């Protein structure tokens, strides 16, 4: 699913990622760890197709309509409601029966009661749950998650644990985290960036 050799990324003269090798088979669960500034987010942006490597080979064997990406930012409009945000993405991803899918995800992530409120009124935890809904909306083959537990309370974290357990083995997952032990039972490989 993912094969990278000597992947390097520079922004101007600054080298953010240096000679990274990565291999994740279809259905694999890769955990990416490393201190702040080690290039975890940059690597995940490369995998999601938001950036191109400056040097090295990176092959992600799926097109962008089958990639789900959870970033540091939630990638949703503050002035729109949860339903309006997900409906926009649902249209762009051409999801059949998107209203049912949106309703199911909002229920699953306990956002149904707040579905008609603007995202600007959400707490950080609620916004992160909505971001997870957005990343999962089109049932991607490859799910790239950058610090998915950040801002989630215990209930939210438990929901995400449950979600990752159900996805592991079926979809390919790459998760960047500072808390790798939380996913130790699910991971199939680990990449430590220095």
């Amino acid at each position: 699913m993912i094969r990278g050799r000597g992947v390097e990324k520079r922004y101007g003269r600054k080298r953010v990622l240096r000679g990274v090798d990565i291999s994740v088979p279809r259905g694999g669960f890769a955990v990416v760890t490393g201190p702040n500034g080690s290039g975890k987010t940059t690597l995940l942006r490369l995998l999601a197709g938001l950036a191109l490597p400056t040097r090295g080979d990176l092959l992600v064997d799926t097109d962008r309509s089958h990639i789900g990406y959870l970033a540091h930012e939630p990638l949703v409009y503050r002035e729109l409601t949860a339903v309006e945000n997900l409906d926009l993405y649902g249209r762009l991803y051409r999801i059949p029966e998107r209203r049912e899918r949106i309703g199911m995800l909002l229920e699953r992530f306990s956002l149904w009661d707040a579905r008609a409120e603007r995202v600007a009124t959400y707490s950080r935890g609620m916004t992160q749950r909505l971001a997870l809904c957005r990343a999962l909306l089109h049932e991607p083959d490859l799910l790239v998650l950058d610090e998915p537990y950040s801002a989630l309370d215990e209930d939210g974290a438990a929901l995400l644990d449950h979600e990752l357990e159900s996805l592991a083995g079926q979809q390919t997952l790459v998760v960047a985290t500072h808390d790798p032990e939380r996913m130790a039972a699910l991971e199939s490989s680990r990449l430590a960036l220095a």
Partner: protein
Amino acid sequence: MTYVADVLALTRKDLRVELRGRDTLPAMLLFVLSTLVVFHFAIPDDAGDNAAYGLLWVAIVFTALLGLARAWVPEQEHGVLDGLVLAPCDRSAIWLGKTLATLVFLLAAQAVALPAFVLFFEPLDATAIAGVLLADIGICAVGSLLSAMAAASRARELLLPLLVLPLSIPLIVGGVGAAVSPDGERFLLFLVLYDAVFAVLSWASFEYVVTE
């Protein structure tokens, strides 16, 4: 058809965001009206029609700049542009949706500004109004692309006018020419040509602006 549906969905989203936030259009309306009022009192009565048409274009261009400066702000908040870029729609649809939304805001501002201009200064004939509409399309097409480029920079407020104003000069020449020249149709043709060339260039190059 899916391309058109994507563009319409993105335009509708921009209009809805503006309707909720009211961040752009009220500022544009207030700016263009107050500019025309200031010009009305600032220029002497015997300054002539041509000076008034020139001032109308100053007001139009800077009102458009105001709208363009805020065009990508909703996408910058919460990093939404990455989400749109990841979606499997043609990336140029993102630019076209933004261009159409910005055009709607500019037309709304002019729906107030042009009657105010007629009230304060001179009547506008059909050729002059056609010149304004054609120039609007050019400003929004080029401006949406340049605004996306500037949005990625920390100095975007400074960068945007530096990028937009030089490329607006042909539009101002065409717009003023359409209003004051006895051969106004020739200037309209020039504006159509400008719009076509720069719309195609912006449409084709947007993808390279939003990928690293």
